């Protein structure tokens, strides 16, 4: 079964009014179970909108989405997915462990079971010693790891991430990318990952979906064929560089028709 089926989606904001914006048109995408897919493109290409449509935080104007064989709304109600944003969005009045317990609390889990799961998640993101700390006592990278642990707390089969490492420095960022991959290997989650960074997209993904703006659409899907398990050595790999070149060229196609903003092309 595929994790996500997107069938001819479009999204129009303020439809019919003077400031109507076509955010997405003719989006078709199928994401297999366990697959890691990145969405990349210049600002305004609708990649975050697409993520929110999958998450049922927005309703599509037209077309159909199936998540885990259900409607996105049902998938949201069942907490089939976990979500992480660029800002970790941790609640400053809750300890690290309590932050991770939040989605479990809302599901009505009992206290002992919640705490057990939170500790399991903290082991996973290697922050077990920080369960009793408050978010403001942690570094940015650690906060983001807590946010990922929170997203994974309900053991979702699907992770939706909107530039989760966008606010981190380069060193921390590469470290977090490796961490994320090793977590996904252990949990077997499928991931939809929105990013601005070409190397990040290529390093993490099985497929990179290149999008272009006005109106938001998919211009190309780049398959990344890197052999074996990815590690820091992957960053010196020929296949890694070929992937980067392929994505860059696909984005350049976007650039021909439109000015590209907000793409980190290192």
């Amino acid at each position, binding site marked *: 079964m595929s994790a996500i089926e997107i069938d001819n989606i479009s999204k129009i904001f303020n439809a019919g009014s003077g400031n109507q914006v076509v955010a997405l048109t003719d989006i078709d995408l199928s994401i297999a179970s366990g697959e890691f897919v990145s969405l990349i493109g210049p600002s305004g290409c609708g990649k975050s909108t697409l993520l*929110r449509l999958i*998450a049922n*935080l927005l309703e599509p104007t037209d077309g159909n989405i199936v998540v885990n064989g259900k409607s996105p709304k049902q998938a*949201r*109600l069942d*907490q089939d*997915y976990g*979500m992480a*944003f660029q*800002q970790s*969005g941790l*609640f*400053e*009045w*809750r*300890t690290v462990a309590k932050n991770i317990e*939040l*989605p479990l*609390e*809302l*599901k009505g889990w009992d206290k002992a079971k919640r705490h057990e799961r939170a500790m399991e998640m903290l082991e996973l993101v290697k922050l077990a010693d*920080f369960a*009793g*700390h*408050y978010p*403001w*006592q*942690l*570094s940015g*990278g*650690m906060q983001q790891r807590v946010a990922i642990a929170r997203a994974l707390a309900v053991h979702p089969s699907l992770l939706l991430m909107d530039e989760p490492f966008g606010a981190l420095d380069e060193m*921390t960022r590469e*470290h977090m990318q490796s961490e994320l991959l090793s977590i996904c290997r252990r949990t077997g989650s499928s991931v939809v990952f929105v990013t601005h960074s070409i190397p990040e997209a290529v390093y993490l993904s099985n497929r990179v979906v290149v999008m272009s703006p006005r109106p938001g659409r998919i211009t190309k899907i780049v398959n990344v064929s890197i052999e074996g398990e990815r590690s820091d050595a992957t960053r010196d790999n020929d296949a890694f560089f070929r992937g980067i070149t392929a994505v860059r060229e696909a984005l350049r196609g976007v650039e021909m028709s439109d000015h590209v903003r907000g793409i980190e092309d290192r």
Partner: protein
Amino acid sequence: MSATITRPTRASFLTPRRLRRVALFFASLLLVAVAWELYKVVGPEAGGKIFGWKLLPRANDNAMPHIWEMLERYGRPEVRGSDRKIWSVVLAGAWFSFRLALVGFFVGAALGLGLSILMARFKVAERGILPYLVLSQTVPLIALAPLVVSWGGKLSIGDWTWPRWLSASVLGAFLAFFPVAVGALKGLTSPPSASIELMDSYAASWWQTLRKLRFPAAVPFIVPALKLAASASVIGVVVAEISTGLKGGIGRLIIEYAREATSDPAKVFTAVFGAAALGLAMSGFVTLADLYMMRNRPKEATA
């Protein structure tokens, strides 16, 4: 992952910083007393003019009794021949008013919170209610006090009749609810959209979002609003006591003692200090609540 990690330590109640603040408070009291006595030495006996404006207060013993006379007055009986010392009368009055103010404070805070939740929930309610809240605070308390008393006097449910003191508490609540309503509304709507989206992604109900996100996020806004509400409830109660003639409270004592200002000038100050102590007690009470509610918050968020 280089980060300076500070273990969360439960701060002890008496930190050097807090002790210093208490010491500063008493030093400032002393400073005011010294300034008072200094003015009595250099100020004009019958008041004075600056550039034709009558600004300088009279420094004679009738208008400005010595500090020690005021303190000494506490030890003497309230009225000649009575064996009840004035300190116990003032203390009883302050305690009476404190309880009324406390009732007013809690009723006002609850009302303010309720209104803010209603306004945060329904945009229509905010547009409909908020202008009236602002308007309500422009009504002079003196004008409202007799109205509340007469409305209350007509009210009785079964065996229960409206006690006179409740009118004073209601007026305290009337002043106290406003800062809480406005502050809490600002706090309840303060969470960033990402946090709201997060709760939506968990399929959290509006009520759950209120309890787990909006309300805790509003606490740093509610705490200073409660401080305003505490002093407002005291003012409301004292003014209501004066304008409705309610006996037993500190407001009434101030009015009674002020009538004796020529024969016994130090007397009124004993009641004035009682009212000040009452205000301090209320704000101390709220400060304790503040310390408790903000104990685990980042330091920059504490005002």
